[in-house]
């Protein structure tokens, strides 16, 4: 599939494809992405497996934007792709964030950190289109990354160094939101941040949904590789997730392994 547009968003790269045959996508779902040409070209023949990437936005007419942080052999190659380059795409995969029940009397509170902003901004876009008021809290390391937030003027932004928005993590704005009234939290970001959010939501009995990440080979339930431990045993993030209810999580870690449950 041809890439129709690329642009930078802070230190991240946006890749847009147009697929008129694409099924409807739900925020929180992901695709397996690999470059059609040159994939595997980095040192030692990596990357080899496709990379699971959430979409940042969808125009409802087959135009989908992915957000890539070029930090490893696979994401670096994806981030180097230009308009007209070919992208192999399998998806949409996974469950996505649950639909809000019409009877829901809580306000959605969306919390994201770093590259985790992609599915959260997709959800924010969907809620905004439906006219649903919601909180949007975005955390970044510093101004270079936080450039991405400029496109979302309604977001509350926190940076570790205070260069943009308030100084600190997403936890202070989250606490203010939880104090303001009943909330349902939707979160994506690094495991340490998600664990802090999960623990805070657990303390206040706040329903919460987490878009998690794990090393993934196939993305559609065949390899059983993307295992994460929950209170209900091991689940596969690609088919049982990637969005998991906080009610079944005893902890969120970078390995998927949670001790002491």
């Amino acid at each position: 599939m041809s890439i129709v547009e690329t642009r930078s968003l802070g230190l991240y790269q946006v890749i847009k494809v147009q697929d008129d045959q694409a099924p409807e996508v739900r925020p929180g779902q992901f695709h397996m992405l690999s470059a059609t040409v040159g994939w595997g070209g980095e040192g030692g023949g990596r990357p080899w497996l496709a990379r699971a990437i959430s979409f940042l936005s969808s125009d409802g007419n087959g135009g989908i934007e992915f957000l890539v942080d070029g930090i490893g052999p696979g994401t670096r190659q994806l981030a180097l792709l230009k308009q007209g380059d070919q992208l192999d795409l399998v998806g949409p995969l996974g469950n996505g964030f649950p639909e809000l029940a019409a009877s829901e009397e809580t306000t959605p509170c969306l919390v994201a950190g770093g590259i985790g902003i992609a599915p959260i901004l997709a959800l924010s876009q969907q809620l905004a289109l439906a006219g649903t008021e919601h909180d949007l809290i975005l955390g970044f390391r510093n101004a270079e990354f936080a450039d991405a937030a400029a496109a979302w003027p309604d977001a509350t932004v926190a940076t570790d160094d205070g260069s943009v928005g308030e100084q600190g993590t997403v936890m202070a704005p989250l606490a203010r939101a939880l104090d303001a009234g009943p909330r349902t939290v939707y979160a994506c970001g690094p495991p340490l941040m998600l664990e802090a959010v999960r623990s805070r939501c657990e303390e206040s009995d706040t329903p919460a949904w987490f878009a998690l990440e794990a090393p993934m080979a196939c993305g559609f339930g065949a390899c059983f590789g993307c295992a994460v431990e929950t209170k209900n045993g091991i689940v596969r993030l690609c088919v049982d997730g990637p969005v998991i209810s906080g009610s079944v999580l005893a902890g969120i870690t970078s390995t998927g392994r949670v001790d002491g449950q």
Partner: protein
Amino acid sequence: MSVNFCGIELAHPVVNSSGTFDPLAARRAFGDAAFTNFPFSAHVTKTITVAARQGNRPPRLWEAPTSLINSIGLPNKGIERWLAEDYPQLRELPVPLIVNVMGFDTDELIQLVGAVAQLADVVAIELNVSCPNVETGTIIGSDPDECSRTVNAVRGLTTLPLIVKLTPNATDPAAVALAAQEAGADAISMINTLRGLALDPTTLEPWLGGGTGGVSGPAVKAVALAQTASVCAAVSIPIIGMGGIDSGHAAREFLAAGATLVAVGTASFTDPTAGSRISAELGAMTAH
């Protein structure tokens, strides 16, 4: 390109490796086309055990150059739930069904083979012998005597073809294959994954939850091809060759080494339709 394997007529020689393609998951993700345009000429199930298994603790995957190291640990719902929930759906596949089982002792294996042999839509049974003898600790597939005893224990239970899935982690896979043949196995499939270790780049501790893992992918193809050629020379029963096959050319190499069928494994992870592509490429090559 149709081929006869143990009396079973298959449309082409490309099947899937056990545990690398789940038709039910594929149908949920990609719709009915995953069944109707099934990429393989037969479906080999993921290993089924007597008891349900969660599998190994995460992390379970590590990407290495053109390979994958996995420590999955045979998660499955156990034979009873598989019979009740999965088999009725799998029998709707447009291709024959080969069921892969593993017993942790002889009684378990007898129970599994006995149950599967009764199923009308199963055409063959594959024995995963990459497990230890619980009394001696020896990996059954690494030892000719152990392998012989295992095949003997179930040979009389069924007239269905019995396929022994060999491990490459053996001193002499050809001797194990020969022992399997003499004990009455109808075919050999090979190779299972090669034992490998991935270290966390920061801590230098084992990365995988299970400690070591199994290496698959194009990086193991040369090893698989050598072992396949060696086993094909030693036995007269048919071989399902596999290990890093990701193209029609690679499939053709295993057939040239003497395999009757080839299996595609890890390639289906990077492209769920890899089996169709590989059989089409193979067909185009052999047509000339």
